[in-house]
């Protein structure tokens, strides 16, 4: 590739290329609209680089296969959409419990069920958080443009290695199928976090679930010098099943705290015109593109509108939202669902009665007027 080459790409293609940039060495997936192009691009790129690409029999086997391949020392990814993401939930929980790095891309489409396969939606935010059973924390990232899709895909791999866990990249049909120009970053331009392998020598005891002082758990790949057990059962630091209440208690707190304690490090967001804003728009993904236009339209009319674009959805950056919205008269959350991030924002701010929803759930992209109408309505009411 030429230096700083500018390519005209589809969002899904950007995601695939970013995965290659991050060093993905194993991909398994199952075709599903609107994510399929990620697999199609990787099916072409990966063999050429000597990396493993597999099309599996379903989404369940896809997520299981990537977890298996992660344990044999690979950076791994799968991509899917709503129905496939639903099928993956049990194994995602396994990934959390067994603490296996992997990246799951969910290109959201209309739901529930088969819903609207070729239409836009952002209704999987809460499923991403609570889709699998049991207590645990999750990391989920999103993006509204191609530069960010690239960066967040790389970040998803980095976080999965750093925190040793599944990380979800929540894209949506609009940005995944939209084409725009992108300058492909040069190697080394974006930081890449590699797997932390244990330095414990062969004849010493290696504990796969014993965290270092900094909270990280060094790994040892299957086939390497340390043999240990991995299980979805509650387990001790050796990876062996345990029914001991103390062991279970420590484990659950660890699975939650290993993310919650670092949520400021994980928080990715952008603010625009927030210095004087008394109306704050909060948005993400495709909706953020429209919200940005709304902000600019209303600014032209002299309204003090600012915007927060979320790129980290989970862990939810609640104290950041609290601080940024402290002086707002109104907070409007623009999203393509019935109020999933809205719910989190209401929990985060000091006055939840000042938080309103601008949404669309009909499969068509929310447009700037949809959001503007809500602001106008509030101002009419507010005066």
């Amino acid at each position: 590739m030429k230096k700083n080459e500018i390519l005209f790409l589809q969002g899904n293609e950007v995601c695939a290329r970013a995965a290659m940039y991050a060093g993905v060495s194993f991909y398994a997936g199952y075709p599903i609209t609107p994510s399929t192009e990620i697999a199609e691009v990787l099916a072409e790129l990966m063999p050429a680089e000597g990396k493993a690409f597999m099309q599996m029999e379903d989404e369940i086997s896809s997520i299981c296969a990537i977890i298996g391949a992660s344990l044999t020392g690979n950076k791994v990814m799968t991509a899917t959409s709503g129905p496939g993401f639903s099928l993956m939930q049990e194994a995602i929980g396994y990934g959390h419990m067994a603490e296996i790095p992997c990246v799951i891309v969910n290109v959201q489409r209309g739901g529930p069920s088969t819903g609207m396969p070729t239409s836009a939606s952002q209704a999987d935010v809460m499923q991403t958080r609570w889709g699998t059973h049991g207590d645990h924390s999750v990391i989920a990232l999103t993006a509204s443009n191609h530069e960010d899709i690239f960066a967040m895909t790389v970040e998803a791999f980095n976080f999965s290695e750093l925190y040793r866990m599944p990380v979800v990249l929540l894209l949506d049909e609009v940005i995944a199928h939209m084409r725009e120009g992108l300058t492909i970053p040069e190697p080394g331009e974006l930081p890449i976090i590699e797997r932390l392998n244990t330095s414990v020598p062969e004849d010493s005891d290696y504990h796969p679930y014993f965290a270092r002082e900094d909270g990280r758990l060094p790994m040892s790949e299957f086939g390497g010098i340390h043999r240990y057990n991995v299980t979805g059962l509650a387990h001790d630091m050796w990876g062996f099943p345990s029914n001991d209440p103390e062991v279970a208690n420590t484990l659950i707190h660890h699975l939650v705290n290993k993310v919650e304690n670092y949520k400021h490090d994980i928080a990715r967001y952008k603010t625009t015109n927030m210095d004087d804003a008394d109306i704050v728009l909060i948005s993400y993904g495709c909706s953020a593109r429209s919200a940005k236009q709304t902000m600019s339209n209303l600014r032209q009319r002299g309204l003090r509108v600012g915007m927060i674009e979320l790129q980290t959805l989970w862990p939810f950056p609640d104290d950041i939202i609290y601080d940024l919205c402290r002086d707002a008269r109104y907070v409007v959350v623009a999203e393509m669902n019935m109020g999933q991030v809205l719910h989190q924002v209401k929990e985060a701010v000091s006055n939840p009665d000042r938080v309103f929803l601008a949404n669309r759930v009909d499969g068509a992209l929310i447009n700037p007027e949809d959001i503007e109408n809500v602001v106008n309505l509030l101002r009419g009411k507010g005066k």
Partner: protein
Amino acid sequence: MAVTDYLREQFMPHIWCPGCGHGIVLNSLVRAVEQIGLEKNDVVMVSGIGCSARMAGYLDFHTMHTLHGRALAFATGAKMGNPRLKVIVPMGDGDALAIGGNHFIHAARRNMDLTAIVMNNNIYGMTGGQFSPATPKNRYATTAPYGTIDEPFDVVKVATAAGASFVARSTTYHVNELIKLIREGIEHPGFSVIEILDQCPTYYGRKNLSGSAVDMLKHFKENSVKIGKGTGAPGEIEIGVFVKEVRPEYCDKYESLVKEVQGGKK
């Protein structure tokens, strides 16, 4: 290496009931691995959920105790992620054929070098004795108090039809043959299925008046015939190697594909 070197004895006694056949399978498997002379670091064992799945914890390999029915899917990723490794997958009949049925047929179709050991005791043991896809018709289980009306799967036929390149069957009575078959399965360069008829006196046996573990083993002894030597009588158990063909193995095929792509031939 001594046979016991392959065991994690610190985690014994095992959880299996008295009379359970799973210990015989474990014993046979370890002896097969020992005869081949596999290095412990070169073996990955992937299991699902159920009584059978606990085998992984007792063996000193790289062990992954995964989800119900999904062992072959995890194993597929592990093997493809490092084709140098020997991957052995112990499964129960419910694990392999019901919830895991889809993965079972597709693993067979792909012909990846995995060794699937189906420990068929005709029952869900871990949950307390419900009928499985391998429970014969008109047998009893906690969820079939009036007898089953379901037709069972024939593991050998399913595996053969789905494309497994090594398919064998034996029983926990035939320990020496079992060691040989497991060894052959592990050494076979492709997807191997070894069905082992295995006694569950606690749940299957008790509900179906099969007697003690010894009685159940005697049943295996008295009703087993070598392939082609039987009379076709109902209840006859054909044992031996049904399929053994060397066909292109999945990881090898992928490696060739990569070479062709990189060499500009594709």
